[in-house]
């Protein structure tokens, strides 16, 4: 009985930590340059997946899409790739090698969310993702 109580208590504590950890996961916002016309850039979650898999290379008006990633070690990158691409960066090696063979590079990566914002504001057709709390007047989120 004593050991059963310990097991239940341990599981409860683990569940609580898990719930707290889950709550603390940041909300990710997919962002573009604040000067972009959003009506031109409407797309679904599935299209976002195609953009980050580099299967869709152009916006509807013919501009080249330039997706930007955070580095593989960044926690927001793991959260984003799990949610959008369905796997962690380490599991995508074969896929990116295959695309390299066809001359297509994976999205460029940068170290910080500030670098993502700067890349987006300085690059025509760029799209990226950051913690929603860090959105400022230089970028705007896509619905």
């Amino acid at each position, binding site marked *: 009985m004593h050991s059963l109580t310990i097991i239940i208590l341990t599981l409860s504590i683990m569940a609580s930590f898990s719930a707290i950890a889950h709550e603390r996961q940041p909300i990710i916002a997919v962002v573009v340059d604040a000067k972009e016309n959003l009506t031109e850039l409407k797309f679904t979650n599935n299209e976002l*997946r195609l953009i980050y898999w580099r*299967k*869709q290379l152009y916006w509807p008006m013919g501009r*080249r899409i330039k997706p930007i990633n955070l580095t593989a070690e960044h926690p927001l990158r793991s959260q984003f790739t799990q949610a959008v691409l369905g796997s962690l960066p380490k599991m995508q090696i*074969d896929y990116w*090698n295959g695309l*390299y063979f*066809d001359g297509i590079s994976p999205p460029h990566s940068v170290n910080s969310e500030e670098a993502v914002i700067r890349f987006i504001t300085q690059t025509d057709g760029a799209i990226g993702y950051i913690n929603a709390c860090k959105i400022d007047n230089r970028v705007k989120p896509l619905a």
Partner: protein
Amino acid sequence: MRISCVFIVGSLALSIGLCKPVFSEETANWKENFKLGGFSSAGIIINRDESPEAAINEVSLLLTWANDSRLSFFSELELERPLSWGDEEKFSRKEGRLDLERLYFDYNISEKINFRAGRFLTPNSRWNLLRAPPLVWTSSRPLATSRLFPTRTDGLMLHGAIPFKNSAFEYKLFAELLEDQEQENNELEFEHVRGARFSLKNESDLGMSLVSFEESGVNGGSFRMLGLDYLTHIKGIEVSAEGFQRFNTDNKDGGSGAYVQTAVPLNSVGFHDWYWITRLETFQRPNEGSFERWLLGATWRIKPTQLLKLEFIGGSGDQPESPRGFTASFALFF
């Protein structure tokens, strides 16, 4: 060689015709839009029936060009067997030859439709589309993926990707416009190639291809071919399979082939980044009989872009393209 010249001249003409003129201040950007990469592999083969041989199998250069326009360019130039060691027991460069594997322009019509013109890998087999040594687990290629259909096509293609539920539906429709006039000694000759490939990318990849073509030679004729391919991961184990069935339009024997392959990670037994490879193959061509192959091997992923492969191949019947014995090779992207 003539066909290569046609493409090179065509490429230049297209570049000049479709791209805006390059002024002096734009020269730097023009150059910055080029990217050069490549891959190479080298290995030894100890055949069951012949003397051992070693070679640098290929050095391939991948050149891409893309700017902010709807046009992009890609080419793969391969130096085949630049250095080999064999019967004469000394190194030789006489087997070396230059081959233009791919050269095409892509033009984006809309976000889901792209137009390709040039020389491209015939999109009727998963292996054929990803045939670079650093991309495949084994040094040897399944016979079914090299001797049943044309491996490359000079012509036009419409291709794109469309979201479909939680996956991507990809299509490729293609047709040959020019015959490849540069044939190697034992290369099969195909013409009037046209077809389609449809694939679904999700947690598993599923592909279907439909192709029609004519084959020259004693076993020639008009053929239609159905190909199916599948790749999935089960508890970290990669399982892949492809099958092809050719139908002769004169109701004669068309030929067929298939393989199934597994790559089992050996991390759990202490060999990090090593994979145990098993493959079974069957292959049959008109008037050539049928062949079976089995393969057992181990592949070490030294880095994400480098593979060391060791394999034993056995089976029935002699096929120069799939010798039985031991093979070791190293492949890398650079």
